């Protein structure tokens, strides 16, 4: 049996072991210092600086008096950015309040649609032969790995009024397709703008493979005996799904739900390229507002940072929830 370093330390050869340990510690510290300095610069500093900027009227075009152009022409304004976002009548603030609502609406639509598709598909995938299971799973995952920019272009064509596939399918079954899928501000169904519905469908189509593979992996870890026992007791497939599979997957479902919500809050590309925030800001989201206020229209980094802080707090609460779910003990 090989001697481990801790054995050395325990034996009478203390000084030799101590020297070895000191040498290893030195190596560990000198290796980690550059990595930690790097994290300080590109993770800790940015998060702190974003907090600071959210309390300033800040634009990089103006030269300030202090550190990184803070102060002077970029004055400290306390929580005025947040007050403006909450109650102000400026155009960015009004659009942002709508964006918060739209982001919430998008998330609330995406989550159940995603689960309704992925859970049953995962159960069905689990029931077929291994060879086909791998093939199907690989294909379902294809949109997930695709460039969202390319997919946004593909879906713009799918929704094209004249020659898009969706209009063609509507006509094929005798329905009248909407005049415009993405640009008609008056097309609203059950309080949800049509453009938003279109983005939700395109996004869920791209994203469902992700949760699907997670559910398939989780199902594989459920002991088969439990489901067989239910079948032997005469449960229908429907009962087996609701009374055995769903309760056993509760923790995984909860976890993927939180992850899906976190990622839905941050969706950017498809809103920017497919619906372009329109029509009449009906698909304007928080992330789109942050990007546009910081880099497109106004270079108002202070206000944009305040917006990002609001997003951060929402996501932080969800992340803490996620870690708490992960920590809970679980046994079948």
């Amino acid at each position, binding site marked *: 049996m090989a001697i481990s370093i801790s054995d050395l330390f325990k034996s009478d050869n203390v000084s030799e072991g101590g020297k070895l340990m000191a040498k290893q510690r030195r190596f560990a510290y000198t290796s980690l210092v550059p990595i930690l300095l790097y994290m300080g610069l590109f993770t800790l500093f940015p998060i702190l*600086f974003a907090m600071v900027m959210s309390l300033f009227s800040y634009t990089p075009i103006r030269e300030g008096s202090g550190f990184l152009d803070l102060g002077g022409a970029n004055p400290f304004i306390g929580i005025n950015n947040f007050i403006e976002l909450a109650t102000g009548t400026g155009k960015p603030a009004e659009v942002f309040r709508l964006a918060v609502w739209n982001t919430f609406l998008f998330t609330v639509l995406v989550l159940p649609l995603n689960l309704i598709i992925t859970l049953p598909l995962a159960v069905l995938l689990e029931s077929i032969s291994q060879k086909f299971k791998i093939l199907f799973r690989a294909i379902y995952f294809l949109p997930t790995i695709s460039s969202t920019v390319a997919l946004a272009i593909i879906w713009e064509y799918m929704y094209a009024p004249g020659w898009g596939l969706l209009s063609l399918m509507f006509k094929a079954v005798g329905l009248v397709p909407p005049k415009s899928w993405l640009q008609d501000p008056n097309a609203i169904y059950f309080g949800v703008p049509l453009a938003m519905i279109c983005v939700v469908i395109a996004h869920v189509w791209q994203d469902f493979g992700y949760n699907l593979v997670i559910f398939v992996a989780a199902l594989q870890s459920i002991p088969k005996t439990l489901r067989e026992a239910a079948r032997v007791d005469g449960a229908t497939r429907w009962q087996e799904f609701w009374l055995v599979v769903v309760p056993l997957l509760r923790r995984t479902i909860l976890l993927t739900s939180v992850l899906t919500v976190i990622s839905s809050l941050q969706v950017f590309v498809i809103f920017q390229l497919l619906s372009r925030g329109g029509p009449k800001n009906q698909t304007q989201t928080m992330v789109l507002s942050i990007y546009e206020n910081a880099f497109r229209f106004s270079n108002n980094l202070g206000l944009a940072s305040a917006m990002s802080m609001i997003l951060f707090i929402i996501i932080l609460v969800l992340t803490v929830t996620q870690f708490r779910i992960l920590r809970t003990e679980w046994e079948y």
Partner: protein
Amino acid sequence: MKTPPTKRLSPGFILGKSGAYAVLILGLVATLLPFFYIIVSSLKTDAELRQTPPDFFSKDPTLKHYITILTDENIPIERNVLNSVVVALARVAITLFTSSFAGYIFAKYHFKGKNLAFGVILIQIMIPFQVVMIPNYLLIVKFGLIDSLWALIIPSMVDAYGIFMMKQFIESMPAELMDAARIDGASEFGIYSRIILPQMGPALASLGVFTFMATWNDYLWPLIVLTSPENRTIPLLLVWFQTQHSSNQGLILAASILTLIPIFLVYIFLQRWIVDQATSSAFK
């Protein structure tokens, strides 16, 4: 435990099975239909593309749009493809090194402040990119890296999730080999490079493929920091291309299909690593 053979042969079970396949195939069609429709549309002639209502299939399929993109001198794709390849490979190499090296330190060394250091690194996972992108943009401006490919590489050299994953992987490796190497006089870095690294193939493959694809498809950060046409990466080229040729649908569709081909090729060969990585990343 295997399903008993009698169960497999019972009529109810077989009916359920074909029902299962019917639903799964329906899902397959829904997944592939948009790709398929764009591919067949990209093969249409300009006249066929303008026709309403259109035919599903072209009567006279042509690769004209693809050939135009690949050969027209006014469409400078070579430089942009090269940019994407260089940035992706650089980020894969750097991420694999920093993740495996830091993962090794956290997995195999005991020192004061280890949990604190690891906690600092994990903060990155909790912070949304949209929060740090504005300060990072200012840093990149201050460093004079704006509108250069370095701006895509420098801020993404350490991946907290990668470190976490590598730490898990290395923790399961036995300490005996390391100790034997030490007794033979190997340096601590030598243990990493000669003992640990060669055993990490599967973990490195998963993380590498995932990093490659994420970089290849990255759009928001390049959009913020790159401005000149010659510095564009492929997603930026595609968006620019769409605004330039908005009247020429065929070119745009062919360009988006061309963008997807490299990633699909990578996926076909490395499908298993990608799906594994996606599954495990949910439980970070």
